[in-house]
């Protein structure tokens, strides 16, 4: 395999969010940069979704393991806030996978968070917007909990941030 940024990103498609196994880190938007030096040293820059997310350390190790599995031993993986994550960085493919997984994807928004954008989230099961926010905190830091008044089910949303 030729060492190119594109090829590395393709490899990293294999690394999934351990709490949402349908979502790759690339689609999640936490891989903020891949650099390959003239000496073929690969640097992968990452950033956390939520600063307190306990899965981030695991994801960083998983990136290292995946690079090594493909014979790339000359590497550095850096986790930093240089390019902070926000939920608009989730790819379209990632959003589709979230919905199929039963998690409402976060709306694309202008990064000004208010209650309005949390209140009537589209239900991932029946697409109704007749829903209510139950609590902005869910089973993991990145999820909020909602109730659909039409299909009468609780559902979770990957929170806008």
């Amino acid at each position, binding site marked *: 395999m030729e060492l190119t940024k594109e090829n590395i990103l393709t490899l990293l498609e294999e690394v999934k969010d351990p709490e949402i196994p349908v979502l790759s880190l690339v689609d999640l938007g936490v891989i903020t940069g891949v650099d390959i030096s003239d000496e073929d040293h690969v640097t992968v820059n990452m*950033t*956390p979704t*939520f*600063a*307190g*997310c*306990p899965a981030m350390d695991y994801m960083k190790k998983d990136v290292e393991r995946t690079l090594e599995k493909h014979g790339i031993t000359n590497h550095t993986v850096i986790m930093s*806030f*240089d390019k*902070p*994550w*926000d939920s608009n960085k989730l790819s379209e493919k990632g959003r589709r996978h979230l919905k199929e997984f039963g998690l409402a994807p976060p709306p694309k928004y202008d*990064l000004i*968070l208010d*209650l309005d954008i*949390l209140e009537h989230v589209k239900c991932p099961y029946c697409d109704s917007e007749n829903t209510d926010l*139950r*609590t*902005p*905190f*869910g*089973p993991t*830091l990145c999820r909020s*909990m909602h109730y659909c008044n039409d299909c009468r089910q609780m559902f979770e949303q990957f*929170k806008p*941030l």
Partner: protein
Amino acid sequence: MNELAIKDLLYKLADDQLILGHRNSEWTGFGPILEEDIAFSSMAQDKIGHSLAFYTLLQELGEADPDTVAFTRNANQFHNSQLVELPNGEYDFSLIRHFLYDNAEIIRFEMLSQSSYEPIAKVATKLKGEVKYHVLHANTWIKNLGSSTEEAILRLQSSLNEAIPYALGMFEPSKYEQELIDAGVYAGEEAVKAEWLKRIEAVIEKTDLKLPDLATIEPKMGGRYGEHTEHLQPLLDEMAEVFKIDPTAEW
């Protein structure tokens, strides 16, 4: 920029969040309803993550690693405001403290996201989005419960009266206050307090609660420079219990 001034600022930011994070975690398993149990537990996790981000900046400036800094200092070496170390009390007190604290915290982060000191600006830019959820949570419950039953209003009012002198202590000026302002690190504690007051008043106005007359209240200062209530040391002892038995333990 004077590194001591930056460290002073970072320590108060980090310690506030570590200590309140720990207090929030004490609600795990004890919340009055499941959603609140999860909310306080989630905020605990967020706040401890936020403290880690600031302790990491301190480490980059030559301080010890985050675990050592968090687990090996005594109460008189902590820079948190006394507000965050007070015991949880009943849910009404925890909710009022959460409301008073997070409305100030988000203003700090908003200001610091514009900071001339770039490492803090980057972290603050990230964290302000997360704290927004804490503020939404606090404001929603204060509005709901603050205009509900007589008991809820009485309890919240009494907790508000109790917490306010400690809340004002959050704005204890730094030894380097003017230096931080002049260097454009942030606008300083007086500016944070003025904006905080506007925001909490806007919420309280929508309830049957009354903000006490702040002019008559003596703020509980001293926390920023190691003066703490009797409640901090037992919290630290509990928090560091495993670390003190085995610093290499992973759990």
